[in-house]
C-alpha cells in the first residue's frame, strides 16, 4: 500500500500555488474599481462639469475585464490541481483494493465505492476554495486597513476591532462543525451500504410480505440522516451568521461615521478633521470588501471540515493492515502444467488441516460439518489466503508470491456464492473470450441461453439477477471449465440443484476428471463424494484424513 505521505499530506502543486496567487491578484483589482466610482460620485458633488462619465465607466469596465481574466486563470490552475489530487486518491484506492487479499474493515464494496466516488468529490470545493480564501483573508483586509488608515483613523479602528474577532468565532464554530460533519459522513456510507443490502433483498422480501417493514426501516434511517444533516447545518449557518453580523455592524458604523463627518457634525476621526466626499464614498465601498475575504474563508472552512473528515477516512483505510494477495492477479504468465500438490502442516484462522497429497488427475472430496474449513482449504489451494503456518508445494516449488499467478492460470474456480460482474453473461463466463460451445453443453447452459432474448449478451448483475440459483451455479461451472484448467476447485457444486441437474453437473465434472483434470470438491452431497477417488473428512478443529 502506498505510504501515507503521498495521499493525505498537504503538498502544494505548482498549479495550486499559481492559482492561489492569481486569485489574490484578482481580489486586489476591486480597490481600483471602487476608486473610479468614488471619484465620479465625489466629482458630481463638487464639480459635475469636470467628470467625463463615459471614459470613467469604460475604465471601470476595463478593470472588471482584467479582474475576470485573472480570476479565470486562477480558477483554471486550481481546478487542474484539484483534479490531479482527486484522481490520485482515486487511483490509490483502486490500486490498494486490487492488491489487498481481504475485505476492508471500512465497510463493504458500497462503502468503498462511496468513498472513491462522491466522498472524494467533497474534496473538490475545498481544494478550489480554501487556500485562495486563506491567502485573500490574510492580505486583502490588511490592504484595505492601510487604505482606511490613510483616510481616517476612526474607520481603521472600527475595522481593526471587528476584524480580528472573526477568526476566533470561526475557529470555535468550525471545530463544532467538523465533529458534526464527521458523524454525517459516517452515516452516508452506512446508508449506501444499507441501500445495496436492502435493495438486493427487496424482491425476495416482498414475497413474504416484508416490503412494508423494509420501507419503514429505511424511512427511519433516512429521517435520522436528515436530523444529523440539520444538526450540521444549524452550526454551519450559525457561524456564517456571526460573520455576517460583524460585517453588517462594521459597514453600518462606517456608513454612519462617514455620513456624520461629511455633514460636518463630527470633527474627529479623520486626519485634519475633514474628509472629502470621494474619500467617504470610497471608504463605504471598501468596507464590505474588508469582510468579504473572511466570509469566503468561513465558507471554505466548512469545505475544509468536510474534506478533513474524508481525508481521515482515507487515512483510516490506508492504515489498515491488510494482507496482500499472492501474485499479481493479472493474466499472462505460463500455465504451470500438471503438477502434484502437497499440503503440509497447514493452519489458518484457528483451523488445522491434515497433510494432503493431490496427484494430477486425482478426484478428491472434502467433507465435514459447516465451519470445519472446507471453503478455507479451497481458498488456500487457490492462493487466495496465505496460510498462517504450513506450506503448499506445487511439485516441489512452494506456492508463493512468484508462483501464485502461474499456478492460478491452471485453476477453475467454482465459489459457493459467486459475484457476477455487471456485464454480459458472455463476459462473466469467458472474460472477453468467446464462450466455447462444448463448455456451454457440459454446463447445460445451451438451453438457458436459447431462452434469453439477448442470449449470451444478457446483462448480469450482483447475485446473478434474473438467474435462478441453479442457473447461476451452471454459469460458474461453465466459467470454471472455459479456460480448460488443470484443476477445478468447486465449493458445494451441487447445492441448489435438483437431483436431475445435480447429476448432470456431477457428470460434467466427472467427464472433466476423466479427461485427466484434477478435481477437488468441498461438498455435503454424499452421492457426489462417493464418486470421487478419495474423501477427506475435516473435523471441527483438528483435521484428520480418513
Amino acid at each position, binding site marked *: 500500500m502506498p505510504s501515507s505521505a503521498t495521499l493525505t499530506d498537504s503538498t502544494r502543486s505548482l498549479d495550486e500555488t499559481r492559482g492561489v496567487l492569481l486569485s489574490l491578484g484578482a481580489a486586489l483589482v476591486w480597490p481600483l474599481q471602487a476608486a473610479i*466610482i468614488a471619484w465620479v460620485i465625489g466629482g458630481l458633488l463638487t464639480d*459635475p462639469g469636470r467628470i467625463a*462619465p463615459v471614459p470613467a465607466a469604460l475604465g471601470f469596465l476595463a478593470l472588471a475585464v482584467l479582474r475576470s481574466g485573472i480570476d479565470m486563470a486562477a480558477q483554471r490552475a486550481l*481546478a487542474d490541481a484539484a483534479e490531479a489530487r482527486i484522481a490520485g486518491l482515486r487511483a490509490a484506492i483502486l490500486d490498494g483494493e486490487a492488491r489487498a487479499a481481504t475485505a476492508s474493515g471500512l465497510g463493504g464494496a458500497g462503502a468503498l465505492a462511496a468513498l472513491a466516488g462522491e466522498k472524494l468529490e467533497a474534496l473538490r470545493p475545498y481544494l478550489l476554495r480554501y487556500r485562495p480564501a486563506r491567502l485573500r483573508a490574510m492580505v486583502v483586509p490588511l490592504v484595505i486597513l492601510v487604505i482606511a488608515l490613510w483616510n481616517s483613523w476612526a474607520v481603521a479602528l472600527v475595522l481593526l476591532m471587528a476584524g480580528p474577532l472573526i477568526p476566533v468565532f470561526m475557529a470555535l464554530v468550525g471545530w463544532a462543525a467538523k465533529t458534526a460533519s464527521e458523524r454525517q459522513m459516517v452515516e452516508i456510507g452506512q446508508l449506501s451500504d444499507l441501500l445495496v443490502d436492502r435493495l438486493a433483498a427487496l424482491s425476495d422480501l416482498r414475497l413474504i410480505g416484508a416490503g412494508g417493514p423494509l420501507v419503514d426501516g429505511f424511512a427511519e434511517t433516512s429521517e435520522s440522516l436528515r436530523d444529523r444533516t440539520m444538526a450540521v447545518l444549524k452550526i454551519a449557518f450559525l457561524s456564517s451568521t456571526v460573520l455576517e453580523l460583524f460585517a453588517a455592524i462594521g459597514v453600518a458604523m462606517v456608513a454612519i461615521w*462617514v455620513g456624520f463627518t461629511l455633514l460636518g457634525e463630527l470633527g474627529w476621526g479623520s486626519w485634519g478633521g475633514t474628509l472629502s466626499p470621494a474619500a467617504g464614498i470610497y471608504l*463605504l465601498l471598501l468596507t464590505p470588501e474588508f469582510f468579504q475575504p473572511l466570509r469566503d474563508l468561513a465558507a471554505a472552512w466548512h469545505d475544509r471540515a468536510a474534506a478533513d473528515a474524508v481525508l481521515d477516512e482515507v487515512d483510516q483505510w490506508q492504515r489498515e493492515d491488510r494482507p496482500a494477495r499472492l501474485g499479481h492477479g493479472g493474466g499472462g504468465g505460463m500455465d504451470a502444467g500438471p503438477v502434484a500438490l502437497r499440503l503440509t502442516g497447514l493452519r489458518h484462522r484457528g483451523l488445522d488441516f491434515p497433510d494432503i497429497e493431490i496427484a494430477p488427475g486425482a478426484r478428491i472430496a472434502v467433507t465435514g460439518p459447516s465451519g470445519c474449513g472446507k471453503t478455507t482449504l479451497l481458498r488456500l489451494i487457490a492462493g487466495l489466503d496465505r496460510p498462517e503456518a504450513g506450506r503448499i508445494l506445487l511439485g516441489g516449488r512452494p506456492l508463493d508470491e512468484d508462483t501464485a499467478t502461474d499456478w492460478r492460470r491452471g485453476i477453475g474456480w467454482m465459489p459457493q456464492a459467486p459475484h457476477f*460482474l455487471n456485464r454480459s453473461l458472455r463476459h462473466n463466463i469467458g472474460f472477453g473470450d468467446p464462450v466455447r460451445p462444448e463448455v456451454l453443453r457440459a454446463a447445460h447452459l445451451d438451453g438457458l441461453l436459447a431462452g434469453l432474448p439477448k442470449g449470451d449478451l444478457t446483462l448480469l448483475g450482483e447475485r446473478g439477477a434474473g438467474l435462478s440459483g441453479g442457473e447461476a451455479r451452471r454459469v460458474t461451472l461453465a466459467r470454471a471449465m472455459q479456460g480448460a484448467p488443470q484443476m477445478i476447485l468447486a465449493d458445494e457444486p451441487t447445492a441448489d440443484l*435438483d437431483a436431475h441437474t445435480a447429476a448432470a453437473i456431477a457428470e460434467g465434472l466427472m467427464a472433466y476428471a476423466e479427461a485427466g483434470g484434477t478435481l477437488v470438491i468441498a461438498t455435503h452431497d454424499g452421492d457426489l463424494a462417493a464418486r470421487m477417488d478419495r474423501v477427506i473428512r475435516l473435523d471441527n478443529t483438528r483435521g484428520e484424513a480418513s
Partner: protein
Amino acid sequence: MLVVMLVRGERRAFLRGLALAVTVLAMGVALLGLSGWFITAAAAAGMAGIGILFNVFAPSAMVRLLALGRTAARYGERLLTHDATLRALSHLRIRLLQGLLTRPYRTLERLRANTFLNRVTADIDALDGALLRLVLPALAGGAVIVTASVALWLLVYPSIALILGTGFLLLPTMVFLLGQRIARRPARQAEAAMQASRSRLIDLIAGRDDLTVYGQLQAAEDHARNAHLRHSTARARLDRIERLTQAALDLTGAGLTAAALAVGAMLVQAGEISAARAAIGVFAALALGEAVAPVRRALSEIGRMTQAARRILPSLAVAAPGGTREDMPGTPSLALRDLDYRPGGSGRRVFAPLSLTVAPGEIVALTGPSGCGKSTVLLLAAGALEPSGGTVDIGGAAVGAWSREVLGARIALVPQRNALIAGSIAENLRLAAPGAAPRDLWQALEAVQLAETIRARGGLDSRLGFRGAGLSGGEARRLVLARAILKRPAVLLLDEPTEGLDEATAQAVMAGLRRALPEAVILLAAHRRVEIAAADRSMALDRTES
C-alpha cells in the same frame, strides 16, 4: 413536475423560506442603496452648509435596522429552506421504494443492485439542489430585481431603472440558458462515468477472489481506471464552462454598474437628478449582482438534476393497485386450475397446464427436473406472476382479487435465495412480523432447529453482516424459514426449503414447519427425497415442448 411534487409536500415551509429569501435580497439592495444615498446626500448637505437641517436619524436608524434584520433573515432563510428540502427528499426516497414495491416481480428482479444503488443515492443527492439552488434563487432573484427596478423608477430615474431591470433579468437568464445547453453533454458524460466507476469498483471489490483466480484482476482494475479517466475529462470540460459562466456573470454586473454610473453622471450633469440619487443607482447595481450569483451554481448542477429527475420520475408512480377483497377465510385452500405460463408473451409453455388443490393442513410437493417450472408455479400461486391461462384461487377467490395487504399478510413465499439483511437476528426475523415478542422468535427458531446455534452466537441481538454474512448456507436457510413461520401465513409456498441441510436436520425442519403451522396450506418445490417424504402427496410437473 418533480419540482411541483417536491414543493407540494412541504409547501408551507417552502413559502416561508421563499419569503425570507426575498427579504434577505431586498434588504441587501436597500441597505447599499440607502447607504450610498445617505453619504452622498450628507456630503451635499455638508458642503451646502445646511448639515444642521439634514435629518440624519431616520436614515442611520434604517441602515442599522437593515443591516441587523438582513443577518437574522438570512439565518432563518437558510434553516427553513434546507429543512424543507431535506424533508421533501426524505419523502422522495420513501416514495421511490414504495413505488418500486408495487412493481411486477420480474421488473424488480431485473433491477440490478449496482445500477439501482446509483439511482437512489446519486439521483436523490442531485435533486437535493433542485429546490435550493434552482427554484428558490430564481424566484427570489426575479422578485427582487423587479421590485428594485420599480423603486429605482420612482426614486432615481426611469432610464436607470430600465437599464438595471432589463439587464439583470435578461442577461443572466441568457447566460443560464446558453450555459445549460453547452453543459448538457459533459454533465451527462461525467455522470455516466461516475456511475460506471462506482459499479466497476464494486465489481472489483466484491468479485476480488473470482477475478484473482481467473487472472482478471488487472483487467478489472484497468476497466475501472478507464471510467475514472472519462470522468476527469468530462469534469475538466464542465469546469471550463463554469469558469466562462462566472466571467459572463461578473461582466454583466460590472457592465450594468458602469452603465448606471455613466448614465447617472450624465443625468446629474444635465441637472435632471441630484448626485445622491445617482449614487442610489450605482450602489443598487452593485447589490443586484448578488441576486444573480446563484446562476453559476444552478448551472453547474442542472445537468445532473435533469437526468436524475428523468430517471427517478417513472419509478415513483405506484403501479395499478391489487384487488379489493379483504375477507379471506381463516383457513383458505389453494386451487390451481389449468394453470399455464408462457414467459414474455412467447408461445413457449414452461409446463403442461396444471390443476391442483391443496387443502388447509396439507403439504403437497411439486417435483420435476430443474427448470421445469416449479419456482414459476410458486410465483404464480403467490400472485407475483400473471398466469397466461387458467386460474389461481385462494380462499374461493382469484389471487388477484385480494387486496395487497391481505396477500402480504396471509401468503408467504420463501424463494431459493436467502434474503437476509445486515442487522440483528431479531431485525431479520421481525421483517415478517414487526411486533413479534422474543418468545415467539425463539419458538420459530426452535421449530427450524436453529435456536441452539443462535444461542451460541450470542442470541437474538447478535448481528449479521451485509446480506446475512456470518451464517453458513444451512443456517441462513433455516433463519429464512423461521421468519416465514413467524409470519403465520395461511398459504406457505416453499422453494427447495431444505437446501444445504443435512438429512437429519432437513427431516426435523420439515416436521417443525408442519407443527408450527398445522392449519396452513403448504406447497413446496421439492428436489430432495426428504422433502417429498414430508409431503402428504406429490405432484410431478411435466415439461412440455410446444
